[in-house]
């Protein structure tokens, strides 16, 4: 996988969460993920097709997504429910959209699927490709989330 595809996802994530969720996210050190167990409690997964094929997932710890969605809605969210699940899907969608705009500038045109959202402790995430999965851990003042990106050319 071309590691140049990673930066657009980092920048887009920071921008989306700042703009829609008033949340500052700081990226940690990327690593290769070897298993399918999600790092968070709510995950949005999007398939990508076009010049390259792949998938991305955004997996939030409970505290983190509750804080982001509370900021988005201007209303305190206290439990993982369908509203939070829906918002996690929309956040994933926006990150994917922003990143695809940046990838377009690098000469890569991609279309995205409608996000699938999975909720629950220790759920698994299956990426479309058999290629390497790069995990990007992020920290916020209210918990962590992880983005996984996998592309094959």
């Amino acid at each position, binding site marked *: 996988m071309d590691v140049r595809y990673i930066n657009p996802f980092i920048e887009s994530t920071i921008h989306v969460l700042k703009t*829609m969720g008033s949340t500052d996210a700081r990226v940690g050190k990327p690593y290769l993920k070897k298993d399918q167990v999600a790092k968070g409690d709510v995950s949005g997964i999007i398939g990508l097709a076009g010049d390259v094929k792949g998938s991305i997932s955004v997996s939030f710890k409970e505290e983190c997504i509750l804080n982001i969605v509370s900021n988005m*809605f201007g209303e305190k969210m206290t439990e993982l429910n369908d509203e939070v699940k*829906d918002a996690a*899907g929309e956040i994933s969608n*926006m990150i*994917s959209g922003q990143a*695809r705009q940046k990838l*377009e500038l690098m000469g890569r*045109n991609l279309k995205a699927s*409608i996000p699938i959202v999975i909720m629950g402790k220790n759920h698994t995430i299956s990426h479309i490709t058999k290629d390497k999965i790069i995990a990007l851990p992020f920290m916020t003042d209210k918990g962590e989330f992880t983005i996984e990106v996998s592309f094959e050319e």
Partner: protein
Amino acid sequence: MDFNITILVVDDFESMRRIVKGTLKSIGLNNFIEAEDGVIALKKLEKEKVSLIISDWIMPNMDGLEFLKAVKGNEKYKHIPFIMVTAEGQKGNVLEAINAGVNNYIVKPFTPETLRAKIQKVLN
């Protein structure tokens, strides 16, 4: 600006409809109807007098572009201002929407100020 108009908000994500409605309320627009996709939106247009459409692009059944084409291709509805609010910000997408007659285009993520400004622009 007439604050009694009815606005059709179309998005398959309830959370995004909620955010858009919150912004509409903040500028004094309180009458809206909602739809989850283009098919449902067209049915609602038949029943209600709508003065502004705010629609997502990527939706199941009938997406925002097909819905836009259906609106702008219909004598009864083509005068209704149509704002596309979407994560699809790639050049080709924007051009396709412009060619189909979209009145304004907002790429997600957006601030409430951006949405407010675009709404006021198409309504004034």
